[in-house]
């Protein structure tokens, strides 16, 4: 590994921290409004499987909304299966999964994960199909999730479970992570809440939730491309970041833009023998997820059943999703 790559990842970490802390005041407001509900609702810790399940056959499937999910009809495959493990939807994949027949009635160990603090993601919970099945869904939310997003989920009947998302705990007692944790512990949650690494997105957060909180093993990924298909319009990749393509940002996806090749890297995935187009945000997500998988406990197996995308490397076992469902149906 080159020092340049490590240096680049450090710079991306630094930049993302700088960009996101520009909305820090909003996070505090979100937490303040959520606090009464946090005190009165459940900790994500309550979802933890029996400790003795760890390292046994207690698998999970993380559902993202990358392009391979449609290409390989993974939602249809899962919906038609007799899979008995945990189904963990990233918030962005929830509506699509439910509409495809992946419901908590068929898959009782059904979860959805939200970590973003922005109201823009309320669209992920604003659909009749969420309200139809909400009462049987376990929701896992960051304490800084926008209150209107949590409220939509709560009103749909989703049972709310709270956790902290780590971002400044390294700054000690004056960090917001520490202060907000002490406030949560002041009432009902005397032992606090679990605190997760997000890796920057709901997909990586869901992977952490699966093994750290639900104690699932193995953990399989579908629709976690962290990149885009070569033959797809890159504007779809921009939209996947909750942004519409507008006249203000369209220049970044024009192929005659001199920075185009710098922005959109083509990565060969040797596991699935395919190419993935990876924009800078997915580069950031990707490098973090690969790093954390490589650092995960030795008892954990991470299976990439996405059948595409940019996730491959150390400690990642590639597998066709149909084979995963055959081998790990329980």
């Amino acid at each position: 590994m080159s020092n340049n790559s490590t240096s680049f990842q450090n710079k991306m970490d630094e930049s993302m921290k700088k960009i996101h802390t520009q909305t820090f005041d909003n996070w505090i407001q979100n937490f303040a409004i959520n606090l009464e509900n946090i005190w009165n609702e459940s900790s994500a810790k309550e979802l933890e499987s029996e400790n003795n399940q760890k390292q046994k056959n207690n698998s999970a499937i993380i559902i993202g909304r990358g392009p391979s999910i449609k290409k390989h009809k993974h939602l249809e495959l899962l919906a038609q299966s007799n899979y008995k493990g945990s189904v963990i939807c990233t918030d962005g994949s929830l509506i699509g999964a439910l509409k495809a027949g992946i419901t908590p009635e068929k898959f009782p160990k059904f979860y959805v994960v939200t970590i973003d603090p922005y109201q823009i993601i309320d669209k992920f919970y604003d659909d009749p199909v969420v309200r139809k099945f909400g009462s049987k869904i376990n929701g896992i939310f960051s304490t800084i999730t926008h209150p209107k997003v949590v409220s939509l989920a709560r009103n749909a009947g989703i049972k709310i479970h709270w956790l902290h998302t780590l971002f400044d705990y390294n700054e000690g007692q004056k960090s917001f992570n520490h202060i907000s944790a002490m406030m949560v512990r002041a009432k009902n949650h005397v032992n606090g809440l679990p605190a997760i690494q997000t890796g920057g997105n709901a997909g990586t957060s869901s992977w952490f939730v699966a093994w750290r909180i639900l104690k699932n093993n193995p953990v399989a990924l579908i629709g976690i491309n962290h990149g885009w298909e070569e033959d797809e319009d890159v504007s779809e990749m921009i939209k996947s970041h909750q942004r519409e393509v507008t006249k203000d940002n369209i220049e970044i996806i024009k192929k005659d833009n001199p920075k185009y090749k710098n922005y959109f890297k083509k990565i060969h995935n040797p596991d699935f023998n395919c190419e993935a187009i990876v924009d800078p945000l997915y580069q950031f997500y990707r490098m973090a997820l690969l790093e954390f998988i490589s650092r995960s406990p030795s008892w954990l197996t991470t299976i990439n059943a996405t059948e595409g995308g940019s996730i491959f490397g150390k400690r990642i076992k590639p597998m066709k999703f149909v084979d995963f469902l055959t081998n790990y149906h329980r």
Partner: protein
Amino acid sequence: MKTNFKKTDSTQYKKYTEYNEVKNDSSELTQKEFEEFIIKSGAKGSFMVYRTEKKEEELGLDEL
């Protein structure tokens, strides 16, 4: 704050290499270009990565 999962030797981790895998003819994105792209295209719907000198803590805490 306690952790109760089996520990790995996380001091030995390496950040993941990227550019050896890149096929198209491109140079490394500068930090300025990265920030420009993120602001224009993807600042919403994402979050930061938590970093600390206590590397084990980067994998999360059972209770905070």
